[in-house]
């Protein structure tokens, strides 16, 4: 019950830090069970509820009929099967995957940069993706081939290129200065945004397409979008989760990490690279959805403490639940219209976040 107070009481004293770097018997805690229950509940609700009123029993039968070894006599309308299987289920899964990835990338950036303001877009992932999509739209090239959208591919390329430039600027020999990375990232983002804006106002007939891509959302999500994200998100998550303890040390002091035998530069590059690739993959299918990568990790810290060994996994679980829930509101509140999901993450996420900040009594820790 008093988890918030406990979180507020955890201070970054020497004692706390040593307890955060000693081996933990198991990274799984009760909070993770709670998180999984929340995630499953939100996920099932998001699958059951939508613009089209498909009866719950039909929804269950449609999903079950696609499982192996289950034969169901499927006499349901084809439209219902398309809505549930081709539209709603992949939409829920991709929203969850994007939420988990953005939240994890945010937590990683915050740890490595030792900066509570770091979000997955800090070093140019989103602005690079937006610029690439805008250039392709403006050039008049088709953004689909064989009815498969090429937006994720273009966006991913732009995101990775942008991060590569930022890394290139900040790298001196084998070391990367965190401050330079942030500054280079912010500067390049400003440049990309300026070019994107210029191209938009010069090509008003395409501005709707650019605008909706930049704003993001999951309206036309397909199973294939999972294939865009999973190859980056899963290895990145494995790498980052394996570095929970080292992230604890890094977020305190790089020098201390060096003393503890951590190859700081290599680890930083590995973690930032993994987080950036994962964020780029998420942005490529979701567009620029704000606040997920900022709010979720901090909410988890405020609720359960800053130990990355449990925080990272919890961030993944609640990031998924948060974005699935936000997307449910995005498509349900104003049905049959959509509200851009980024607006929902802001208007629902931010008041809750401000409330958490208020409860914490002003003690925010990484």
């Amino acid at each position: 019950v008093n988890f918030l107070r406990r979180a507020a009481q955890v201070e970054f004293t020497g004692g706390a830090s040593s307890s955060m770097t000693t081996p933990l018997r198991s990274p799984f805690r009760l909070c993770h069970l709670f998180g999984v229950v929340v995630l499953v509940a939100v996920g099932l609700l998001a699958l059951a509820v939508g613009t089209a009123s498909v009866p719950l029993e039909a929804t269950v039968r449609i999903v079950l009929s696609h499982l192996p070894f289950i034969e169901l006599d499927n006499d349901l309308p084809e439209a219902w099967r398309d809505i549930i299987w081709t539209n709603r289920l992949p939409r829920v899964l991709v929203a969850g995957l994007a939420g988990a990835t953005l939240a994890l990338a945010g937590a990683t950036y915050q740890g490595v940069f030792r900066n509570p303001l770091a979000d997955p877009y800090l070093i140019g992932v989103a602005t690079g993706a937006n610029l690439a999509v805008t250039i392709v739209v403006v050039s008049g090239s088709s953004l689909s081939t064989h009815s498969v959208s090429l937006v994720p591919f273009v966006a991913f390329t732009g995101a990775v290129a942008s991060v590569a430039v930022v890394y290139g600027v900040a790298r001196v020999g084998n070391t990367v200065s965190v401050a330079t990375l942030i500054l280079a990232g912010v500067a390049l983002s400003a440049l990309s945004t300026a070019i994107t804006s210029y191209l938009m106002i010069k090509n008003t007939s395409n501005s709707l397409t650019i605008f909706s891509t930049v704003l993001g959302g999951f309206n036309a999500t397909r199973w294939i979008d999972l294939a865009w994200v999973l190859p980056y998100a899963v290895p990145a998550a494995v790498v980052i989760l394996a570095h929970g303890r080292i992230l604890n040390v890094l977020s305190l002091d790089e020098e201390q990490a060096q003393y503890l035998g951590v190859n700081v530069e290599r680890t930083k590059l590995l973690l930032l690279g993994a987080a950036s690739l994962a964020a780029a993959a998420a942005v490529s299918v979701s567009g620029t959805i704000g606040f997920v990568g900022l709010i979720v990790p901090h909410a988890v810290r405020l609720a359960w403490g800053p130990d990355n060994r449990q925080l990272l996994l919890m961030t993944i679980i609640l990031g998924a639940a948060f974005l699935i829930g936000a997307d449910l509101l995005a498509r349900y509140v104003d049905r049959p219209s959509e509200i851009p999901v980024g607006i929902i993450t802001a208007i629902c996420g931010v008041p809750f976040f401000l409330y958490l900040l208020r409860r914490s009594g002003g003690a925010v820790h990484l």
Partner: protein
Amino acid sequence: MIRSTGKLIWTLACGLLATLAVVAACGGDEADTGAGTATQTASPAAGATYQFDCDGDHPGTTPDTQAFPVEVTDDTGVTVTLEEPPAAIAALSAGHTEMLYAMAAGEQLIAADNFSDCPAAAAELEHLDSFEPSVEAIIALAPDLVIMTYDPGDVRRSLEDASIPVFFVNSPESVEGVYDQILLLGEVTGHVAESEALVTEMSDAIEVIEASLDGAGQGPSVFHEVDTSYYSAGPGSFVADLYDILRVENIATATGEPFPLLNEEAIIDGAPDVIILADEAAGESAETVKARAGWDSIPAVQGDRIYAVDPHIVSRPGPRLVEAIRTLAKLLYPDEFP
């Protein structure tokens, strides 16, 4: 205790904000394009076939100087007084450029916006950016009237400070709105008789089309696709008014918004008989729509009734709306319009 309070506040905040969003989305779309009313007197001449031809010649007529000075109130409630017919007009929207040519006022134009590609004579005009209008560029042309539909900032005030009269009219949201605006521009430019004749010709042509639908029974349902994220056209938009006139069921009507971002489930569930694509320029076609996963059950896909239309004709409020309605009528009612 703390946790449940947190959840409660979160739920309340979400609920409240969600309600606000719905209220904001539902209200405020009642704007009327305003002044003047269309005069529809004569019964339609049989076979009225008005068409504004982009390739045709649109010679001007001498404006009626007797009517001046004239006082006309624009859509912002500002009364503009003109001592004599304007002879150097800058029109900052393609629809208004077409209206002026259609009422034989084209020769009074000196500049138009970058999208003014019709009629051919408009190519000879100076072209201005209407999205970020340059005050300097407009002043440099020394127009004696600027017709604006969009002001990103203080463009109107800057022009008025430079003693250039500005007539501000919103983009029409219906066919009636286009008629009203043609009549209004007729007063402003000294072409009252021509503008009244134009409106009569246009409305006669549309009445002829409507009359052909009388025996058609219930029209098909339609999904109008503006772009690939499924923006559509709903109540309060010019395009939706065309569909209303054609008595078809627009599946975006339920949104209550002029330019809704339509949920994909709603498109599949809405089961439109016809899909009209205004996003051919983005690479969409009947083939790409048919290939979309999950769209197989839609009657328009099964019946192969997916058509691309020129967005410049269908979504530009001006004299070509007759052509737009005729084009859509042929696609929506192939039996009545062979």
